[in-house]
């Protein structure tokens, strides 16, 4: 009896596997349905789940808002979230699945540059737009004409950070640099170092760390030994908070500046008083004064259960970008038309500021200086800015 049972179980399992696999991609229909469907690639599971969740919530928020106001020309937006686990092998297969289904008009994502770059040849060949909120590898957007990124080029932010924030505003003299050793951190760091050389800023020590590091004590002790008056942190919100806390634990009195985290309440929540007087550069800000953005942030918090970082904000904008592009299309809404209008889009202002793509498909943003005072972000304007 048991023998037969196990044979039957195996057979059932195998057929279920095969059936499930072959059925899945055929669920689509033809292109002219009454909704606009976007595929969202995000790491819902795995080590980047924190960011994947932010993607999922923020894009859904945007879609809900648009649909509540009647959608795009009367058609609703439907988002389908695909979990890529931060694994390029999975995301490449998912890309193929998306290219074979005419329903998907464009792809939003993926989070990491590795994934986005593994997807690029596949999606580019099929002629479908991959609009990544966060992929910031310098070569990503240029891989083919269908690739777009709105994180902002680092040859925009890093020089601003060096010249205006560090030198003109903060008046820093000896700077210790700590950067995260991934594609984003490295390119920000490289651009930053180029500018410091031009500006004549004295960089007394430069250290990096591997993503996922929690213990910065020895690294900070080392940087401290070179006696900088200002620390330049090139990293995301969580790590800035960790470093601020550990600087405090060392009893070290040093000015902190950060490139990358944006005006995320996450920093203040994680590091509290330790990030008082932290200076940072950001293309946009979410503060109580900026009512629209503040409302967005509150809504995000209630949906996701945590404070937004810069990542969900840019993910939120991608949906509106696609909406704007589709509204500009005269004639049939095709994947190519979406690409065309996305590239030519002018005058779009999103939550994260104005967005206009350059030829290769990424953007150079304009930056502001913010400072944390009494647990709040305050914009600083008293420095001579030349555009």
């Amino acid at each position, binding site marked *: 009896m048991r023998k037969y049972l196990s044979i039957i179980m195996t057979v059932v399992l195998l057929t279920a596997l095969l059936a499930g696999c072959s059925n899945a991609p055929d669920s689509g229909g033809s292109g002219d349905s009454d909704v606009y469907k976007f595929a969202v690639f995000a790491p819902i599971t795995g080590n980047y789940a*924190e960011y994947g*969740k932010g993607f999922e919530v923020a894009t859904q928020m945007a879609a809900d808002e648009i649909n509540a106001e009647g959608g795009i020309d009367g058609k609703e937006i439907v988002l389908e979230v695909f979990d890529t686990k931060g694994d390029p092998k999975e995301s490449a297969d998912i890309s193929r699945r998306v290219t074979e289904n005419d329903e998907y008009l464009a792809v939003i994502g993926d989070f990491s540059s590795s994934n986005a770059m593994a997807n690029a040849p596949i999606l580019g060949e099929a002629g479908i737009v991959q609009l990544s909120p966060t992929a910031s590898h310098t070569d990503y957007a240029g891989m083919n004409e269908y690739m777009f990124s709105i994180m902002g080029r680092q040859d925009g932010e890093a020089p601003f950070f060096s010249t205006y924030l560090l030198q003109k505003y903060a008046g820093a003299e000896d700077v210790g640099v700590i950067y995260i*050793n991934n594609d984003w951190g490295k390119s920000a760091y490289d651009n930053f170092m180029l500018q410091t050389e031009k500006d004549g800023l004295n960089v007394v020590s430069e250290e990096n760390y591997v993503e*996922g590091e929690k213990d910065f004590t020895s*690294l900070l002790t080392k940087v401290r030994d070179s006696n900088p008056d200002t620390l330049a942190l090139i990293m995301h919100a969580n790590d800035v908070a960790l470093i601020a*806390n550990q600087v405090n634990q060392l009893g070290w009195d040093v000015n902190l500046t950060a490139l990358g985290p944006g005006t995320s309440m996450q920093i203040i929540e*994680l590091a509290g008083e330790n990030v008082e007087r932290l200076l940072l550069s950001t293309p946009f800000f979410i503060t109580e004064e900026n009512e629209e953005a503040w409302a967005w942030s509150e809504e995000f918090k209630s949906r996701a259960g945590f404070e937004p970082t810069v990542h969900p904000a840019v993910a939120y904008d991608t949906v509106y970008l696609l909406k704007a592009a589709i509204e500009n299309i005269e004639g049939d809404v095709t994947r190519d038309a979406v690409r065309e209008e996305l590239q030519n889009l002018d005058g779009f202002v999103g939550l994260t500021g104005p967005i206009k793509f350059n030829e290769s498909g990424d953007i150079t943003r304009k930056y502001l200086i913010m400072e944390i005072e009494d647990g709040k972000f305050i914009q600083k304007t008293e420095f001579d800015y030349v555009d």
Partner: protein
Amino acid sequence: MDYYLMQLVNGLSQGAIYALMAIGYATIVGVVGMVTFTHGEVIMIGAYAAFYAFSFFAENLFLGIITSFAASWLLGIVIYKVCYERFFDSPRHIPLICTIGFSMLIKNLAQIVFGPNMKAMPQPIDLGFINVLGVRINTIQILIIVIVISLSTILYIVNSKTRWGIQLRAVSQDKKASALMGINVQRTTMIGNCIGCGLGGVAGMLLAIYYQSILPTMGGVLGLKSFISSVLGGLTNIPAAALGGILIGVTENLGTAFLSNSYRDVFAFVFLVLVLIIKPEGISKKVGGRP
């Protein structure tokens, strides 16, 4: 000179946490006789238990220690039932895969239940500084070292003086003979596993306080570090495992001090490989369990 002394202190306090994790790990491996990959997740659960205790009840250190120990103890029972109980006579790679699967399960469940984002850990003690021979040491570092030393002492006393401890040691040396002596091997093994897990949980709480933050994925690297530390010590020898943890912590921090931080994990591994080449059983003499 102060600089290197300071790096040494950093290494020691980090090494102390590694040591506590490694003590737990070595206890598990010694009693159960199998290597585990769930220790990182045990540590994470301990940290979260303390986090919720601090948030909902009071920011009391002892409360934190007790809840994290208890939560990890309970998780230890589940781990024992799922990963070990059936597999004592099986080749060792089978429970190993079970622990890999179980750690995946806990990590992903934690991301769903606790939320995937990093949270700030409440601080049960105030930060202060003490000057010792020109080296500034902060109270958290002292707290860690004190807790680790006292827990290790308690473990030592339990192990050598109490009935439980004697049973534990008997089981870790020879399961069959202890069964003949009338020891309930299954139960003793489970308790040993739970003690190891509980110590891991407390280490998790200390780490969370030290870094002032918790994250569902914090366990991965830590589980690995406790594994390395206990292998360095000879896998089942508890004092040697503690020494191994401290050595790994010091190596990492001095490596950062002399060379570069980006190769941090490389230092630990290279050090381990060198020790293993010279002494294949780690730094201890005694070999027990079934490595």
